[in-house]
């Protein structure tokens, strides 16, 4: 029997450390070669680390959330032959979990707040007798919503009757029990990456945000006609491919908007290519897949690529390359898009275009109000390198292109 240490492999991109996102094994587990041991996370993506040997897990190199240096011991296994370690397992050489200054202060110890009736912990099953539970199920009542008048918040038949009689709203003598539970959630993995990225962008970049309204009638008609014409043959067009086209056109006239600002070196990189990041909600959190060379793709090319990347981001199968290298970003919440937003720039880019919801609004045409499909664009710019004038020009250009969509397709 020997001890075999598996070290965190170099996962490319010249990174020196990675965050341990999730263990797939625990001490005592038997693993075979190629079984996945852990998921580690870099700035760009999550990578699965497989075992290189058969063996039994002895020791894990850290808790999820810890930063591990490339080459440090990820895990120790007991193997049948000679291991690659002669010494018994020692303290794993791991980087301290987040650096001190970045670390959130530990939450204050949760002191039980004196209440007459101690409440059950958040998320625990409600205390109720089986007959009460059965009646609640029959009545379609979620017992977690029902305040219990008994000790420890136990729910009685009377509590249930009162809840049902009130139509699910507590009234009169029945009061909602104070919920004193506190749930502590560690900010690790993708959530920590998002938090760091957002803080960096908001700390470094003085944002200027411009909100402009766009009349969408003509573009919506065109979109409907194109979708009807190519139904079933080509990817369905949403608004986004048109907006990408508009950004390509607008940045051709203002290349300073399609850029990345390296503020440490004091250089603005302006790109010929328009690589458009699309902010996408995934089960793990916000992700920004990048449509590469949007300037070279047709409407349908870009629509198809967008659908593919969004799906890959949601299922987690997206590659690091597909999440990097954007030169400008679009953020859209669809029907949730509100009237106006203040988007945060995807650092080190210099501009982000936010799409708000489309709705029919009355527009004064000089004589009367007309119902028009209106949509706002809320766009933010890095005010260090983009003046308000240029930002306003860019927004006006987008507005003109979207309101007169034929101009999207006229060269020159």
């Amino acid at each position, binding site marked *: 029997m020997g001890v075999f240490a598996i070290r965190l492999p170099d996962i490319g991109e010249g990174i020196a450390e990675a965050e341990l996102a999730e263990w797939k094994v625990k001490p005592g587990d038997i693993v075979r070669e190629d079984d996945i041991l852990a998921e580690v996370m870099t700035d760009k993506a999550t990578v699965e680390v497989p075992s290189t040997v058969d063996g039994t897990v002895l020791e894990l190199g850290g808790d999820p959330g810890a930063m591990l240096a490339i080459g440090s011991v990820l895990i120790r296994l007991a193997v049948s032959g000679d291991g690659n370690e002669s010494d018994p397992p020692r303290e794993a050489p791991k980087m301290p979990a987040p650096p001190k200054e970045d670390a959130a202060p530990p939450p204050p110890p949760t002191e039980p707040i004196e209440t007459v009736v101690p409440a059950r912990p958040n998320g625990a099953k409600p205390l109720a007798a089986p007959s009460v539970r059965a009646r609640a199920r029959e009545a379609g009542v979620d017992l977690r919503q029902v305040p219990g008048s008994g*000790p420890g918040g136990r729910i009685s038949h009377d509590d249930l009757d009162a809840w049902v009689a009130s139509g699910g709203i507590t009234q009169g003598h029945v009061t909602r029990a104070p919920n004193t539970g506190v749930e502590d959630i560690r900010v690790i993995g993708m959530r920590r990456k998002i938090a760091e990225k957002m803080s960096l962008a908001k700390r470094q970049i003085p944002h200027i945000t411009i909100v402009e309204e766009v009349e969408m009638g003509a573009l919506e008609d065109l979109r409907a006609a194109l979708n009807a014409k190519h139904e079933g043959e080509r990817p369905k067009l949403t608004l986004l491919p048109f907006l990408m086209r508009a950004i390509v056109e607008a940045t051709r006239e203002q290349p300073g908007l399609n850029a990345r600002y390296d503020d440490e070196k004091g250089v603005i990189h302006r790109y010929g290519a328009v690589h458009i990041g699309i902010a996408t909600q995934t089960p793990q959190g916000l992700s920004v897949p990048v449509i590469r060379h949007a300037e070279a793709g047709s409407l349908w090319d870009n629509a198809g690529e967008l659908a593919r990347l969004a799906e890959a981001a949601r299922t987690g199968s997206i590659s690091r390359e597909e999440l990097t290298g954007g030169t400008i970003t679009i953020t859209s919440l669809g029907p949730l898009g509100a009237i106006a937003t203040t988007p945060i720039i995807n650092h080190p880019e210099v501009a982000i275009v936010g799409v708000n919801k489309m709705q029919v609004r009355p527009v004064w045409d000089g004589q009367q109000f007309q119902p028009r499909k209106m949509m706002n664009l809320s766009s933010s710019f890095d005010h260090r390198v983009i003046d308000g004038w240029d930002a306003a020009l860019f927004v006006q250009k987008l507005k003109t292109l979207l309101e007169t969509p034929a101009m999207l397709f006229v060269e020159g």
Partner: protein
Amino acid sequence: MTDRTCKVLVIGAGPGGYVAAIRAGQLGLDTVVVDEGRPGGTCLNVGCIPSKALIHAADEFHRITHGGLGIKASAPEIDLGETMAWKDGIVNRLTGGVAGLLKKAGVAFVPGRARFLDGKTVAVTGDSGEEKIRAEYVVIASGSAPVELPDLAFGGPILSSTDALALTDVPKSLAVIGAGYIGLELGTAFAKLGAHVTIVEAQNRILESYDAALTHPVSKRLESRGVKVMTGAKAQSHDKGKLQTDQGEVAAEKVLVTVGRRPRTLGIGVEELALTLDGPFIRIDQTCQTSMRGIYAIGDVTGPPMLAHRAMAQGEMVAEHIAGKPVEWDKRVVPAVCFTDPEIVVAGASPGEIEGTKSAEYPLAANGRALTTAREDGMVRVVWREADRAVMGIQAVGAGISEMAANFALAIEMGARLDDIAATIHAHPTQAEALQEASLRALDRSLHI
């Protein structure tokens, strides 16, 4: 050709299957239950019931000479054949009772072996040929079977639990492989009947799934009864009344192999249906539905805990679900009992299993009733949640403590807090007072310790 159609077809008439069938019948569903053996399954025929009968007989026999208390008796004898006949009488009465209950509920019992032809059709092979039954809903309740060791296959002197319950002579020496509850229950019984018993366990201690505080009194009792327990030992082969292990030779006229039970999913066509499995077990949801619509699974085939009363509760729920009632598996606790000596009961969470819980125990040595039965070995332990003092688990070890399993489960299922148990008058003198005392102790209000 389909020979018969019905609304509900239950495969297996063990505790899960017969309860599902009876309840379905009561609810007016046209129900058929299939089993190759007599109704009652493992539990009634070769499990819970006959083993408890044997344990009782062994206890009675043993008490005559080892009871102390000033009682003197000349050397007693036992005719194990007669004991087994008495046990068989109980089994017959109960299986006959189940058959009567099925009939009363309007359920048809079809003897034979079931095999799925497709998700709705089952072929039943019996003595009189094959019958095809087409059902709207199928409930798989095919149970489990003892696991065999490759080097010690059942047959001859190598006994399964089923074989051990049919012995008509007490073996001079018996090796029990596997110190789970089945091996310990039967091993202890044969030791009390006069056999020289050796327990061979591969793990480092007996009853590995229970914590040491619960198993310690059992170990001590085994020791005092002359039962040898070999831990970390591996049985290898058996020849001429000797069992070879990696820790030496053990005298063993018979060898009882109780190394676990496997679900009976093979041979009934579960593979062909490609139901989603969970290891060797059939995966089920909150209503015991499998991955295929209209097919339910209950009991041992669905995985641990492999307990008759869990299967019964699942069976009852499934019948009601099929009948369209709004039910789901919302049990807070499935109590488990080891009929070892002393007995062990576990209900709900163990100490440390749930974050934010604490535990307190009360020794039976401080309980009057335990002293009057000369059995002060054992304790009752309560596990509660600090936030609201809700009782999350109760465990106990002690002679005759199995009868308290229902108190434990009731307290947890009703959502009792420590205060509720502490404030309930517990009749004196009974062992059950230990639960009240454990709760008082948890509240720092002990009276008798």
